[in-house]
């Protein structure tokens, strides 16, 4: 006897439909799964067998063949437990078959017949809706995530027997819905991470505000203990709120990576990822036999913070170049090629030299010039090209630590940042960009209009300060953001003058050339 159940699997960022065919025929008792299953699917035979018997159903002592179609795509994970079990019950007529074809099934079974959560439910729900299914049977824990996709009946299932009762009409299960507005409502800046905790550092704070307003990548250079990490951690608190589309994108990645916290339907706050510098290339950009998103995708629409920037392996840093440019990363493996979104803001922190105290007021640097050069050369030019703002963060003296009052709160800064972003939306939105940092040199010419005096000033500055071609583009991009923060359309002298400050000193005597 044959039963067909529809399910879903994940490939890269997208879900694809999988037809689970269960055939039960006479012969020696056997249970085979075909259709390129991975080890977790092979093991599902044991879970299905126990799950069915422990839910007071009969496991047929016959020859059972399960086929996962399309048979040429590799499938992974335990999410086929439920469709296989339902298929066996349907083939043995232990479940009502009337409405089975209206639904998609995913879920992992426990030996007791309970249903456990699986990864990637959000993209699966999207696929279910696209394929015009009426409903989607999902594990209870994943239900709110799936419910973000409106127009689909999301049935939260907690056990196999419950599903059987649902289809026979013995039990009603209320479909889950989510109020998206409510999800965005409870997204407030948490009190323990706020910019008002930071004393002094006015220059660095302003640089961070500009970086947040324009989505510019940021490099902080400073001695140990100067507060670089503290500053970086507060970055998400001043970034503008996520839009619904952004939230869905980020949630999709977290759902696939299986990193969505339980009871959280939608990631509504910008992510902040701070991987340790021992991270591998695959860990950073994603990878694996079935490609999975890496840290850069997990920080999509958020902040990727790389502390001790030069300590990352050279290869790990260099692979950042393409995603920084394109906002996506394509991972090719023998079995498949997947593209993950990776539009993140890079915030990097590093010491000025190996000992850490070059340019410090109090402690003297003990590095020799060649070691300073070597330390800096770990960050390649092409990578630095992609970091618009460079800011030096000094250590505070005792007087400053005690005397200085705390600065503005994150909420005040965020308001300004939000206004600047709204202006950018209006200005450059028609080029399909969301912030100034994404402007290519060609678009810079189109959007960065300078006043006459500013034009003179810039030419003078290039001459006197020896700005390079790449520095020129950066200065234009940053000054556009500063103009946006000041709610001005034309770039004026003051915007340029400030933008020029957000670069590291170019003093050849000290071999500190960025």
């Amino acid at each position, binding site marked *: 006897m044959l039963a067909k159940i529809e399910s879903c699997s994940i490939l890269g960022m997208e879900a694809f439909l999988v037809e689970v065919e269960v055939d039960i025929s006479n012969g020696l008792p056997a249970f085979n799964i075909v259709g390129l299953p991975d080890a977790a699917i092979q093991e599902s035979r044991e879970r299905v067998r126990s799950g069915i018997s422990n839910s007071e159903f009969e496991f047929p002592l016959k020859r059972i063949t399960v086929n996962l179609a399309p048979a040429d795509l590799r499938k992974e994970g335990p999410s086929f437990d439920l469709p296989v079990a339902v298929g066996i019950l349907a083939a043995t007529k232990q479940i009502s078959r009337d409405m089975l074809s209206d639904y998609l099934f995913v879920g992992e079974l426990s030996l007791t017949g309970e249903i456990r959560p699986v990864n990637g439910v959000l993209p699966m729900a999207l696929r279910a809706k696209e394929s015009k299914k009426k409903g989607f049977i999902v594990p209870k824990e994943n239900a709110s995530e799936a419910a973000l996709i409106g127009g689909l009946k999301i049935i939260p299932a907690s056990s196999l027997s419950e599903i059987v009762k649902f289809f026979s009409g013995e039990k009603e299960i209320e479909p889950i819905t989510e109020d998206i507005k409510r999800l965005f409502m409870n997204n407030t800046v948490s009190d323990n991470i706020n910019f008002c905790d930071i004393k*002094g550092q006015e*220059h660095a704070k302003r640089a961070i505000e500009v970086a947040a307003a324009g989505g510019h990548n940021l490099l902080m250079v400073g001695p140990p203990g100067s507060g670089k990490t503290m500053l970086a951690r507060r970055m998400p608190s001043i970034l503008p709120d996520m839009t619904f589309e952004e939230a869905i994108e980020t949630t999709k990645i977290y759902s696939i990576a299986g990193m969505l916290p339980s009871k959280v339907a939608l990631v509504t706050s910008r992510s902040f990822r701070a991987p340790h510098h021992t991270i591998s290339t695959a860990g950073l950009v994603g990878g694996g036999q079935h490609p999975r998103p890496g840290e850069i995708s997990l920080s999509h629409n958020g902040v990727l913070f790389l502390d001790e920037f030069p300590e990352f392996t050279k290869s790990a840093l260099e692979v950042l170049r393409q995603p920084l440019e394109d906002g996506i990363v394509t991972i090719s493996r023998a079995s498949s090629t997947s593209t993950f979104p990776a539009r993140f803001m890079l915030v990097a922190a590093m010491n000025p030299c190996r000992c850490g105290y070059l340019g410090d007021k109090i402690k003297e640097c003990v590095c020799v*010039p060649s070691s300073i050069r070597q330390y800096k050369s770990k960050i390649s030019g092409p990578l630095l090209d992609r970091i618009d703002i460079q800011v030096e963060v000094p250590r505070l003296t005792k007087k400053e630590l005690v005397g200085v009052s705390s600065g503005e709160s994150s909420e005040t800064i965020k308001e300004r940042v939000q206004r600047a972003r709204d202006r950018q939306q209006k200005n450059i939105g028609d080029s399909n960009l969301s912030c100034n940092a994404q402007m290519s040199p060609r678009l810079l010419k189109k959007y960065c209009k300078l006043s006459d005096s500013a034009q003179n000033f810039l030419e003078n500055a290039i001459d*006197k300060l020896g700005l390079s071609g790449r520095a020129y583009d950066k200065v234009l991009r940053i000054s556009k953001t*500063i103009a946006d923060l000041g709610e001005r359309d034309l770039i004026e002298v003051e915007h340029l003058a*400030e933008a020029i400050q957000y670069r*590291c000193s170019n*003093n050849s005597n000290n*071999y500190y050339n960025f």
Partner: protein
Amino acid sequence: MDKRFWLGLKLIPVLDKKIKTITDSFESAERIWLADRNGLSKIDGIAINEVDEIITRRNNIDLERWWQRYKNIGINILTIFDDDYPPLLREITNPPTVLFFKGDLILNYSNAVAIVGSRLASIHGSIIAEELASELSKEGVTVVSGVARGIDGSAHKGAMRGQGGTIGVLGCSLDVIYPPENKKLYGEICKHGSLVSEYPITTKPLKWNFPARNRIISGLTKGVVIVEASEKSGALITADFALEQGREVCAVPGNPKNKLSKGPHKLLKSGAYLVEDAGDILDVLGLIGHSEKKKESSVEISLDEQRVLNFIDWELKHVDEITRELNVSSSDAAILLTILEIKGLIKQDIGKRYLRIH
């Protein structure tokens, strides 16, 4: 033609070491190079057991090819027997018999001054060295230094602005770039003066070459100016050579707490001339500056800029200090600093700190 044989002598280490002794006995390089076994053993300073080594090495050297190699790199050879050999250098106890040089050697050698100092110079020191060199050069004085990091590099850079030009003396051969970041500086020096070395090509910057180089630096000049040097700095070796050679020693004082002031202060205590500006150096060396005193800077600055400039003064000040003490917003401070930097009144040091330079 004779120069080729000089090159040949430099290429055989045994002869190179004794080049002074063997050429003092009025032997021409050509005669030494062409001498047979018998002739070589008769030359003063060559031991019998060295003759065989000299002959084997000599047979392996294709002089014409080497000569072309030097020409291709642009290296010229000057010997102590040449008329255009720097007269001041000729006076020292052990002048280099053969000098390799690149660039233009016809500079005003009677008016040369060395500016040397620490490789790990502070921004203060670098600015002072550059300023002194530039003013001396504008007075027609050639500035000699060691093409090293720090003070040396600044001195060369400053000197290129005037007609005096600059001479760089290397501790390695002319085809070896050390330190590597000085590649551009090498080229610039050749354009505005010359690079000099007593070592045949492919000589690495070995550490014992540098004291020997220092004797040439002081030897080429009438006086040596030390800007920033720690107690063990090589710049002090140059000063010692200068004393031995009877040249003037000048030093620029600094903050007594700073270890880079120890060297100059030590020299000052033992009688070196104190130097505050280029005029002091010209006085000491009996040179007369012909251009009138430098005009006060004529840059127009606004009241706010003047306030920032007065606050920064001649001490390194961090941008946040400026923001706080002058009670301006961080963006306003940034604007004023950029404008002052462009006007050339302040300079940025590492760690976002600023220093007034005019």
